[in-house]
């Protein structure tokens, strides 16, 4: 990772810019787009933990996003619960459903897991669409309340809502950072590399995979609940499979299996699609080829690409240094020491 663009600096830069962003601009539309981007980022982080770090590509996460959103919507609008109680409960519901689904889905691997979860995501969408007595079907849920304030802090303006979402995003990034740099994170990566190998060094893959799955559905649910409270109206479309492919695009553009990838990918794609709005449906003509090129040349996204380029440069430098050292050893101490070293 290059000295200036390492992940810690990117995150610090992001935190600073995002903190002052609402103070620089008075355009509520920009703040609105930014808040939505943050909400998606949380979900993309969940997807990243599962698909990027553990190697299980779930296509059901739009479904869990919708479950989080509808959980909050139904509990506040229909059951008239207080906001934060409904918020916590909607997360618990998502996690519990994630646990049940994970127990079954994680029996499959690789493509089969992706296909299974794709079907599952569609089933979740259908249930939301058709179960009219509970979800209001295509009419959608209207009138979801804004988050209740704490004392003097209220979340009724765009700005205050922006900071609330930012708070949750930073929390998610912190949790991700801690997970990735811990033994659990390394065991997830070990599972991604080779499940057999992970097993032979004593990692219980079944338990670890289930933990990751539930955690990542929780992130998706959190993202959904925040979405519902921010947009205040939800329809079954948010659970549509198209949504998971949006999330996947953000993740792949930024860098799958990297800590800063979801940040960069989501911001870039969302702002780019805002900028290109004049082109309307022709946007996709620009997006499609760009995405294809990126996947071919930088399969680990922008962050992965930058890291690789930097690593190659470092390796080259090291090789030059090592080359000098080797010739020194050979001439001075003979070949035997080299054998011992290597």
């Amino acid at each position: 990772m290059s000295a200036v663009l390492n992940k810690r600096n990117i995150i610090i830069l992001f935190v600073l810019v995002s903190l002052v962003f609402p103070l620089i601009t008075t355009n509520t539309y920009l703040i609105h787009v930014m808040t939505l981007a943050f909400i998606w980022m949380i979900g993309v982080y969940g997807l990243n933990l599962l698909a990027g770090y553990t190697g299980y590509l779930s296509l059901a996460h739009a479904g869990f996003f919708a479950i989080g959103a509808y959980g909050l919507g139904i509990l506040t609008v229909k059951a008239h619960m207080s906001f934060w109680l409904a918020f916590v409960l909607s997360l618990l519901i998502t996690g519990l459903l994630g646990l049940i689904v994970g127990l079954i889905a994680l029996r499959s691997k690789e493509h089969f897991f992706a296909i299974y979860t794709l079907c599952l995501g569609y089933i979740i969408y259908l249930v939301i669409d058709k179960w009219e007595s509970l979800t209001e079907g295509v009419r959608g849920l209207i009138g979801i309340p804004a988050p209740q304030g704490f004392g003097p802090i209220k979340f009724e303006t765009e700005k205050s809502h922006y900071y609330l979402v930012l708070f949750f995003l930073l929390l998610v990034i912190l949790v991700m950072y801690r997970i990735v740099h811990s033994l659990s994170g390394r065991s997830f990566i070990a599972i991604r590399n080779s499940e057999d190998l992970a097993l032979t060094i004593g990692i219980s893959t079944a338990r670890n995979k289930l933990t990751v799955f539930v955690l990542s559905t929780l992130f998706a649910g959190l993202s959904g609940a925040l979405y519902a409270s921010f947009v205040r109206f939800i329809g079954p479309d948010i659970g549509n499979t198209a949504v998971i492919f949006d999330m996947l695009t953000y993740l792949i553009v930024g860098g799958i299996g990297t800590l800063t990838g979801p940040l960069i990918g989501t911001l870039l794609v969302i702002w780019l699609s805002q900028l290109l709005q004049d082109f309307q449906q022709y946007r996709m003509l620009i997006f499609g080829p760009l995405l294809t090129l990126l996947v071919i040349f930088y399969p680990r996204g922008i962050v992965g690409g930058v890291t690789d380029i930097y690593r190659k440069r470092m390796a080259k430098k090291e090789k030059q240094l090592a080359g000098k050292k080797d010739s020194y050893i050979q001439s001075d101490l003979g070949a035997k020491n080299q054998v011992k070293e290597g």
Partner: protein
Amino acid sequence: MKFVITRRSLRLIWEGVPVLKLDNVSVKYGSFTAVHDINIEVNAGEIVVLLGSNGAGKSTTFRAISGLNKPSTGEIIFEGKNLNKSSADQTVAWGIGQCPEGRKLFHAMSVEENLRMGAYVHRRKKDQIKHSLEHVYELFPILKDKRHDPAGSLSGGQQQMVAIGRALMSKPKLMLLDEPSIGLAPLVVEQMFEVIQKINKEGTTILLAEQNANAALKIADKGYVFENGTIVLKGTSAELFANDEVRKAYIGA
């Protein structure tokens, strides 16, 4: 380094019970029988070698012992416990450490991270991990110098050291080493076998799969010769060394 014998292994030696026993074990991949009806006994403190060419069934036997493949018939018994139904991560916790064929490190992780991963089953015992780490660095001083380097940047011999070290970190009673000499220069192989002998003297029982019969029989107590998924010959290393067929097939003299 002290000669460590646990009370349990002492009792096992006393009673003459083998640490590991494979009783008429067969392993199938689908309808194909990879290993047919084999019997192996490994006693506490021994080095036992499984000889055989590629595809003879050595690695499959290892996969069965470690729990990655389940035997279709027969019993695998480790310290009196039946391993047939246990999962691979459980066997590690019970004391079977494994060093897979072809090293299989986590290339992007540093040497030390790789070693620490090996102590996964002891992850809450911080002191023990520290001691094991020091022990591994004592056995392979070069790894200490390279502990912050990514494992993928190491030479073949060094990677093999990391793989053995990683297996040692789980404090195994029985260590499975699958072809530790593969792809290494002769001098490095010699070094590797010296270390294996040292690990054995420190109290770890070792089961070794090898094609390099010459090097392996020098340090082993006894051996089994695999051919086409069955054991065709067994004996002490001296017996096998003297056997004409073994000499012809694996030593080339």
